[in-house]
């Protein structure tokens, strides 16, 4: 018999009430007077000896009545045998072994392998085992769930296949991948087996909410097996800290952390190019930040604990954050002075402003960007081309007063961009004025500060400008005047950029000089706002386009191409400039001339160096289906279905009516028995 509302059966506990009442009746009921107590001794009646139940028949009847009532309200019914619960024979076992970088510490991985061997020995013959390696993703290593054959793991091969990598662990993600694998396999095999997951890990990472978001299927049990091998003398590591723009760029800031159970507090820090040999004292469980002078070439820092190497770190070469900006003025002092004030006000980079003379060809070789306010002599043609090929920027600002020198401007344009075919003429704005439309967000100015919507030029008025006629196939118009005339044109020459700016900033011609938007605009055009940081920090597993390893701390994984899209090994990478992506054989030439857009220092996540499992307790309480606990969400659906069936059966059988009849009969007998008990003399 099954109950539709079994909690009502708890009401049968009410039979305690008549029992207690019958027992209470045995207690002292009243008072009896007596002539003298001199022959009596006061004593408490023994509580148990006289606790015989009076009127046993009456008690039984009352208890039966209560039980029947409880049964009636519990809505009993008989469930046919075919609707019995499905028995599950055999189970699926997933052994997930953490192969993240933290498993490299000490003997953790050896211990993990030993745990796997023990697990395999303890499994039943009907269990179907599948072994996964897991770091940020889960990859099946061995075993198959579909077959019913006993799993005979090739442990030697398994040991080879399972190697700890350099990645950080993302165990929730790995678990989800295993569960997805399980679901797919269930659908394919039409199987209903339970899944038991053993997760062997050091649980070095911090707890994340992703553990709580895992959608556990029914009949899944997870068992966490922690690998806790205490670190010995290699538990010190070195990390490069992020850029700090307020500090000098010629210094790397590194943090040296010593483990809680380190063998020594004295560490030696050396560099691969012998530029650094330093002894550092770091207490156990403590960290220390050092400033390491940057060198011109990349180097590898090595942290030694006695004779053994504890940790290594690849560092990029020093990055120059100083820019030399040259200016060829047109004789109008105010014009170049205003530009100088605008350019040197940029905080992100140190600007070395140089006012050039016509014969100052040597200085041209040192500058990174050039502002041409007038037509340079013909001897500048080659240095300008070299500047562009070096990745420099040239901004040509044509004053309306010089628009008459049409041929000379055309010659300059053709010398730098032969296909440009630029023709300049003076543009009169008529009775009104022009306004610059918004600057288009193009790559070349992507990091320019004036791109900010706050720097929109929509309200800046222009009274006089230069009209440009050009080959529209060449160059990109970044901004226009409101009559459609180009205001700012960009030409790409190799890695360099050439800008034609047709508006003047002098107050006689426009409002530009007095605009707060002028300085961001010009510094952006001169490439001052686009200076990349000396390096970027990345962790193992990060993805990025066009990566090239430079200094690796571990061998390149076999099969990986030199140009990577995902960082798998800690070390130093460089990201090539956009637009210079090399493809095929023809790309080798351009690769040689490619510039480094940024250096990337890839490190193992610091939490992978943790000594002890940090998140075990939190993971256990994050809703993991553990032993004897079926996943709530999935089993809820099963329960609902069973509930509907049970209600239907209960409605059809209506056993409660018979129970009610029995209650009435018992009540009648109880009344008769009570009447007799009352009449019986005591």
């Amino acid at each position, binding site marked *: 018999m099954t109950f539709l509302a079994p909690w009502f059966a708890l009401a049968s506990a009410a039979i305690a009430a008549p029992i207690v009442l019958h027992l209470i009746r045995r207690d002292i009921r009243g008072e009896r*007077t*007596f002539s003298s107590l001199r022959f009596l001794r006061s004593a408490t009646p023994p509580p148990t000896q006289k606790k015989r139940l009076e009127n046993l028949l009456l008690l039984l009847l009352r208890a039966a009545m209560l039980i029947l009532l409880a049964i009636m309200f519990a809505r009993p019914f008989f469930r046919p045998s075919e609707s019995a619960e499905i028995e599950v024979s055999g189970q699926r076992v997933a052994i997930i072994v953490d192969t993240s970088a933290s498993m490299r510490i000490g003997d953790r991985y050896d211990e993990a392998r030993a745990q796997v061997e023990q697990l395999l020995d303890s499994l039943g013959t009907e269990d179907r085992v599948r072994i996964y390696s897991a770091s940020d993703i889960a990859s099946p290593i061995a075993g198959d769930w579909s077959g019913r054959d006993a799993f005979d793991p090739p442990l030697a091969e398994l040991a080879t296949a399972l190697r700890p990598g350099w990645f950080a662990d993302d165990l929730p993600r790995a678990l989800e991948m295993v569960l997805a694998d399980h679901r797919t396999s269930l659908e394919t095999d039409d199987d209903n087996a339970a899944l038991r997951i053993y997760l062997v890990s050091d649980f070095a990472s911090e707890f994340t909410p992703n553990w709580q978001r895992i959608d556990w299927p029914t009949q899944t049990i997870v068992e966490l097996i922690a690998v806790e091998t205490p670190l010995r003398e290699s538990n010190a590591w070195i990390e490069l800290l992020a850029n700090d723009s307020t500090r000098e760029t010629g210094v790397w800031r590194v943090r040296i952390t010593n483990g809680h159970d380190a063998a020594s507090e004295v560490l030696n820090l050396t560099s691969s190019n012998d530029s650094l040999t330093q002894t550092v004292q770091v207490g156990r469980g403590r960290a220390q930040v050092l400033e390491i002078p940057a060198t011109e070439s990349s180097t590898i820092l090595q942290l030694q604990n006695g004779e053994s190497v504890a940790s290594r770190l690849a560092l990029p070469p020093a990055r120059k954050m100083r820019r030399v900006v040259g200016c060829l003025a047109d004789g109008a002092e105010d014009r170049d002075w205003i530009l100088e004030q605008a350019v040197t006000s940029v905080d992100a980079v140190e600007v070395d402003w140089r006012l050039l003379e016509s014969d100052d060809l040597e200085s041209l070789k040192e500058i990174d960007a050039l502002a041409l306010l007038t037509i340079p002599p013909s001897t500048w043609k080659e240095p300008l081309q070299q500047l562009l090929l070096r990745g420099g920027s040239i901004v040509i600002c044509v004053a309306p007063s010089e628009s008459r020198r049409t041929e000379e401007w055309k010659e300059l344009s053709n010398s730098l961009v032969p296909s440009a075919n630029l023709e300049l003429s003076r543009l009169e704005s008529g009775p009104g004025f022009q306004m610059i439309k918004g600057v288009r967000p193009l790559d070349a100015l992507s990091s320019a500060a004036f791109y900010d919507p706050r720097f929109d030029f929509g309200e800046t008025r222009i009274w006089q400008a230069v009209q440009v006629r050009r080959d529209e196939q060449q160059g990109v118009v970044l901004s226009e005047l409101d009559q459609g005339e180009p205001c700012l044109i960009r030409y790409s020459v190799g890695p360099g950029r050439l800008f034609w700016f047709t508006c003047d900033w002098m107050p006689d011609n426009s409002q530009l000089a007095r605009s707060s938007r002028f300085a961001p605009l010009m510094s952006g055009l001169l490439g001052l706002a686009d200076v990349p940081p000396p390096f970027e920090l990345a962790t193992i597993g990060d993805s990025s386009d066009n990566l090239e390893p430079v200094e690796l701390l571990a061998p390149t994984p076999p099969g990986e191409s030199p140009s990577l899209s995902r960082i798998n090994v800690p070390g130093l990478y460089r990201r090539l400039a956009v637009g210079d992506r090399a493809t095929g054989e023809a790309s080798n030439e351009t690769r040689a001339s490619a510039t480094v857009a940024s250096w990337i220092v890839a490190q193992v996540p610091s939490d992978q160096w943790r000594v002890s499992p940090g998140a075990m307790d939190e993971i256990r309480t994050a809703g993991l289906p553990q032993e004897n606990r079926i996943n709530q969400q999935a089993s809820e659906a099963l329960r609902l279905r069973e509930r509907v069936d049970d209600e239907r059966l209960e409605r059809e059988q209506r056993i409660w009516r018979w129970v009610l009849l029995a209650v009435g009969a018992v009540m009648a007998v109880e009344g008769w028995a009570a009447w007799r008990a009352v009449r019986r003399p005591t």
Partner: protein
Amino acid sequence: MAPESQLLDPRTLVRIRDLALRSRAVIDGMCRGVHHTPQPGLSVEFTEYRSYAMGDDLRFLDWKRYARSDRLYVRRFEDETNLRCWFLFDVSRSMAFGEQSVSKIEYGATLIATLSYVLINRRDAVGLARFAERIESFHPARLHFQHWRRLLGALSGSSSATTTDLGRSVEQIGGLLKGRGLVIVVSDFLAELESMRLPLARLRARGHDVLLLQLLDPAEVHFVDDGRHWIRDLETGRRITVDPNRTSAEYHERFARHQETLRELARATECDVETILTSTPLDQALSDLLERRARLTKGRVLRRSQGGSVR
């Protein structure tokens, strides 16, 4: 049980509110149920001779014996005067107990009323003293029926005293009695007895005959309790519970020891003791009592005539 006996059943008898009527009913029943005994008229009976001493009343000289033996003897007789009888009635609260029969105080009152009626009818004087902690009221011995009526009124009341002090009460009554007579202490004697020893001895020394008439309820003799009630002392009001497994045996043992103490006390003070259960029909109880008293008196006379000591 015969109808007349049923009539004298204590429970039936106490339904008669009037104590006088109740006592007459007992007397009638007693006369019918007991063999007729000769009226006691022994007050002029000769008891012994004693040598004449100076000062003896010459009226009691036995001149015939003097003629025969030439010696002067004086004849001694039983007291010719009427018997003076004092009832010392315990009216403490414990006497109000009557679980299975009438209460002891009702039984005792009826008993005293009946006996006093018989005695007065026999021309004996009857007195009454009520006591609990001490003598509460005292009625000297008189022999007219009007006095009997007053005694009946005195028998009806009860005491508010919370304890019974037998020794003090007997001591006090000793000081109130004039002349010698019969002192009948009607009580349950469920109190401390030892204090009564000296006062009883003094009463006896003054020449009183003392009868300790113990009235007991059958429940006091055959005590049974199931441990399901508080037991409250009628006198002190104290409540206790008892262990039913051990109480019965302990009670009977202590009660038997108490009764033995009472008998030993009676023996030591040369008092008589009679125990009457309140379940006993009153006429039967009185008949038995009077019969035993008659036998006892005859035995004593016989012992004296055979040279025993004269009290």
